[in-house]
């Protein structure tokens, strides 16, 4: 049963007639008697036509039934004449392929264009080494920003697989002092082939892709589309900076949600107006295929453009932060610590130590300080800077006197490196004394993890000291 049939059946069941039928019927029937002023009620099925009603409608912004019908008919007419086709509504031009056409909407932005707090051109100034750093990918040092493509797709579904289509593919790049953004759009399934032909040609010039979640979503999907259309997919050989991983590394600590939308609000300072929620986009396109009314798609094109501009400014903004003098590169302490962690992950221990010192010089939340101290101590160890390591460990132990890990690490340092077993023992016993009694917190049979950790270390040290007393009870008896 088609929707039309259903509607008809429903109309019949409820005894309704369609507007056109009604208009016909009314034209045939004698006009209903004018409503008596005594009865303010609407005549059945009609519109109240008198001065006060007209005034009321005007004030409320309502239409009369007749006006509404006229407008609807005009709209149907316009639709039939293709007035709501995408090139009329959204703009762009039709591009010919070997066998068919697709719609290309090109938007050119000057590099000074501000997207949120950052201008697009900031990305162009970024140092490839910085890209390699925040992409956590050495190969990116080779990347050429003039040949870097910012890519995003809108698709008919998120599940992937051969039947999911990318109906809107956006490719942006810097060209002749401008940021040129091409939005390639399928007006129907047969537009795909010419669209991919065009893109294949364009991708020939690409050496790096920047995307948001493109490694696991957009690129595999594009690849599938190219394979299915038996065309060569050139992006396979390109380098790839996937900002979703970067974003998680840098902002996960501060923002629970690292979606592009949230990053725009929290990091880039972008405010969208007239956007459509991403989850609705597949259905909007599928609906458009049948209605041929592309007006609801305006929001989709806007959403898609904004996504790509955010990719550009995210790159620009990150590399600008990295270019600033060491120290307070990020405004938020959480982000500073994330930066530290990123350096640590890439084994840049000297950098970690330097940044860590700066970090500790400012006030910050205890949890973050603790994390920083731990990372610094470990960085010093890896860099074989043992004096600095002892300094970091002692500071950690001093600032967090009940922290078992700090105590144990410091004890280990004295045990293995300075060979000062007394000091090691002292660190442990002091810390144990400071810990709340296990009996209070835990059932008698259990003991707190901190206790276990330290007593185990203590036992080792005491064996070495030659004054081991077996069992943990012995230690508690002392107190």
């Amino acid at each position, binding site marked *: 049963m*088609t929707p039309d049939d259903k509607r008809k059946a429903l109309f019949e069941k409820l005894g309704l007639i369609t507007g056109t039928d009604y208009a016909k019927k009314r034209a045939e029937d004698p006009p209903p008697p004018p409503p008596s002023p005594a009865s303010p009620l609407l005549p059945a099925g009609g519109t109240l036509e008198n001065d006060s009603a007209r005034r009321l409608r005007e004030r409320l912004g309502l239409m009369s039934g007749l006006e509404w019908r006229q407008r609807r008919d005009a709209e149907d007419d316009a639709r039939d004449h293709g007035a709501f086709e995408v090139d009329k509504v959204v703009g762009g031009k039709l591009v010919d392929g070997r066998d068919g056409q697709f719609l290309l909407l090109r938007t050119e932005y000057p590099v000074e264009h501000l997207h949120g707090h950052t201008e697009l051109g900031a990305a162009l100034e970024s140092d490839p080494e910085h890209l390699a750093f925040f992409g956590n990918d050495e190969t990116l040092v080779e990347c050429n920003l003039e040949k870097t493509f910012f890519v995003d797709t809108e698709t*008919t*579904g998120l*599940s*992937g*697989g*051969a*039947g*999911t*289509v990318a109906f809107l593919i956006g490719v942006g790049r810097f060209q002749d002092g401008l940021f040129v953004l091409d939005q390639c759009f399928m007006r*129907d*399934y*047969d537009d795909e082939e010419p669209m991919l032909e065009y893109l294949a040609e364009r991708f020939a010039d690409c050496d790096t892709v920047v995307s948001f979640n493109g490694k696991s979503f957009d690129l*595999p999907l594009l*690849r*599938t589309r190219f*394979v*299915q259309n038996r065309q060569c997919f050139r992006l396979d050989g390109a380098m790839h900076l996937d900002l979703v991983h970067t974003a998680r590394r840098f902002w996960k600590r501060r923002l629970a949600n690292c979606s592009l939308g949230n990053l725009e609000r929290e990091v880039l300072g972008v405010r969208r107006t007239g956007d459509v929620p991403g989850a609705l986009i*597949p*259905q909007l396109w*599928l609906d458009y*295929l*049948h209605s041929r009314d592309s007006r609801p798609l305006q929001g989709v094109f806007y959403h898609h453009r904004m996504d790509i501009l955010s990719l550009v400014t995210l790159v620009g903004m990150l590399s600008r932060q990295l270019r600033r003098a060491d120290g307070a590169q990020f405004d938020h302490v959480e982000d500073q610590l994330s930066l530290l962690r990123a350096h640590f992950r890439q084994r840049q221990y000297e950098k970690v130590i330097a940044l860590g010192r700066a970090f500790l010089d400012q006030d910050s939340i205890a949890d973050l300080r603790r994390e920083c101290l731990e990372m610094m101590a470990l960085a010093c160890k890896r860099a074989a800077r043992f004096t600095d390591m002892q300094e970091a460990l002692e500071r950690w132990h001093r600032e967090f006197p009940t922290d078992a890990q700090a105590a144990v690490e410091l004890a280990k340092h004295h045990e293995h490196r300075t060979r000062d077993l007394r000091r090691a023992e002292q660190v442990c016993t002091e810390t144990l004394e400071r810990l709340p009694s296990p009996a209070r917190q835990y059932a008698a049979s259990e003991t707190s993890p901190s206790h276990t950790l330290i007593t185990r270390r203590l036992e080792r040290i005491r064996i070495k000291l030659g004054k081991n007393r077996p069992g943990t009870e012995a230690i508690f008896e002392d107190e």
Partner: protein
Amino acid sequence: MNVAQMIDRLRLDRDFRYNLTAWRTLPQRPARFADFPPEVRPELREGLARRGIEQLYSHQAEAVGAVLRGENVCVVTPTASGKTLCYNLPVLNRLLVNPNARALYLFPTKALGQDQVKELTSTIETLDVKIGTYTFDGDTPANARKAVRNAGHIVVTNPDMLHAGILPHHTIWIRLFENLEFVVIDEVHHYRGVFGSHLANVVRRLKRICAFYGAHPQFICCSATIANPREMAEKIIEAPVHLVEDNGAPAGEKHFLFYNPPVVNAELGIRASSVKRASQLAAHLLSRDVQSIVFARSRLRVEILTTYLKEAVRKMGKSDKLVRGYRGGYLPTERRDIEQGLREGKVMCVVSTNALELGIDIGSLDVCIMTGYAGSVASTWQQAGRAGRRNTVALVVLVASSAPLDQYIIAHPEYFFEQTPESGTVDPNNLIILASHIKCAAFELPFLEGDSFGLDPHSTAELLDYLAECRVLRKVRDRWHWSAETYPASELSLRTAAPGNVVILDTTDNGRVIGEVDCFAAPVEVYQNAVYLHESRQYTIDRLDLEDKKAYARPVEVDYYTDAEMKVDLKVLDRFREEPTADGLRCTGELSVTWLPTIYKKIKFGTHENVGWGEIHLPEQTMHTTAYWIEFPEDAAERFAIGKEQLASALHGLANALRQVSPVHVLCDLGDIRAHAMLRAPESEKPTVFLYETYPGGVGFSDKLFTHHDRLLDAAIALLSGCPCREGCPSCVGPAIETGGYGKQGALTLAVAARSRTGSAASSTGSARHSREGGSIPAGSGSPP
């Protein structure tokens, strides 16, 4: 004690022999060998020789030769006859010539696939080449999947994974599909009914994808012995196959015994428990150190038997580790451990469901005991094949339960031994199944005008247009594209026929699942206030939630059981075929079935008094399906001298009996078919017995039943006349209480009358003892040699 001595001892055991209905001795069969086909590469032959394989059995050589000639092959051989070599040899041979070639192996279960990889890897190790063999299934870790896709020469998987995990992502499997030369489908007999109909469609999709990448793989199928292996294989792969069924593997002498536990209550037709008898026999074997396998039909029975036997060995003062259970639901490592234990002789007795019926390598055992008939001739031979080494004597004992099918088989051993096994049925063009797969196929690749998928191009186009109207597909120019947000393969399961099962939860035991019934049966078995019997415990159902598919039960102790009355309405929508019988018609066609449970009766145990009743408030359910039915003349009551009052119970009895014996000729499960009798069927207004399929649209069972009409009726006649009860019992027409006193006799009369004209001469005397052309042997007559 060895098996031969054991058999001699049984031969002298009078009590044991008294309950036997058959003792057959299958003679020893020598091996027949053949040379390697000349195309087999020397390094492969050397490798095999290193594993002790110097020569091929004749069937292996024939199969390998046919594959090397480029034919599709279907190999039919019993358990443990070296069928894996039939496909591994040509595949490896090809890989030695062309290292880019790829092969895809399909096994019905993950365990079989993993087994196969082990076997292959050890063969490959002798070859000194790099051939990647990997399983790809639900257990494959995400980080290993990429390696399988790129480097797997042989990818071992199951139909479900191919359907939902590989085909919809074919673009990342490009290496496999571009170079796919062989597709191996093992255990083809397993793919019958709904599962097989799905698989045939998955194969259609696979071929479509291969064609897209320019590959045209050869198919190698393996099947256990069934009546129509060629038909099954050809229906599934939709191409002609070269059938190899001349088994050249050797076998030792085998004794096959049919044991019927003695009747303990003649009135109700109740026999001694088959589980008890089987466990006594197995315990006896254990005490004599004879290695055995015990098959049981349900997981529950496996557990019960295992418990009995473990207790028994402990009493003998031995370790209970000698006895192990084996069934689905055990962890893979546990299973591997048991399999190895069997091969090494550390496990002396394994109790298994049909999980061990498939080709998992456990070596060969001395004795096989089947607790209850396996449900089909084919499975019974499969299970029996577990016993018997190449040159020693083996013993197989079938212990019958009191189920009607068991009783029919046990009373008619000649049926089992002489009959060809059942024929498998698949209907890939069941509209519901076909349409679901067309959706999946459209998702994978757009359809082009002129394409065909199971149907001719015109009908395919019609179906595609219909899907386009539903806005699932969209036609642009000459192509239909998938046009929805969903992923169709994830919405379609290949195995479940019904829309799922209703689980029964014990609310007093933390919602423990005590059992399940299919959605079809739930309204008549687990309605509110029903008494549900499980493991001889009584539960009452507090609530049935059909939406969440849950029934909430709690244990009770009452002296009655409940019996629901269901109002079933059948409407014949279409007649596909009809043929006259002696006095009426037999037909197949499409039905609309509506069922509505109305009331339940409380019936007292022992006296069968009706002690109360209640109403059932559940919604009506409707389904369209195919059916096979027998129409009797309007004056049947007079014509057959049954009596008007008794006609209803006679029809009811016949319906029950027919349903019970239908798995004898069609490889289906009892749950796949339902029976219904009507005194006056709508439209024709004649007394009619319907057998209809439980899968919406049907999967071809009705058609098979229609074809086997006479044989089906003969089986029903034999069942009824062979049953020792007086007025009907659960082993034939159903309890007398349900069918009324005349049910059994009347059903017999009707069954004879319903035979088709040609065969009716044999039965025209009205004597129901004339059952099969060969003449039936009365129960208990099969005597030991």
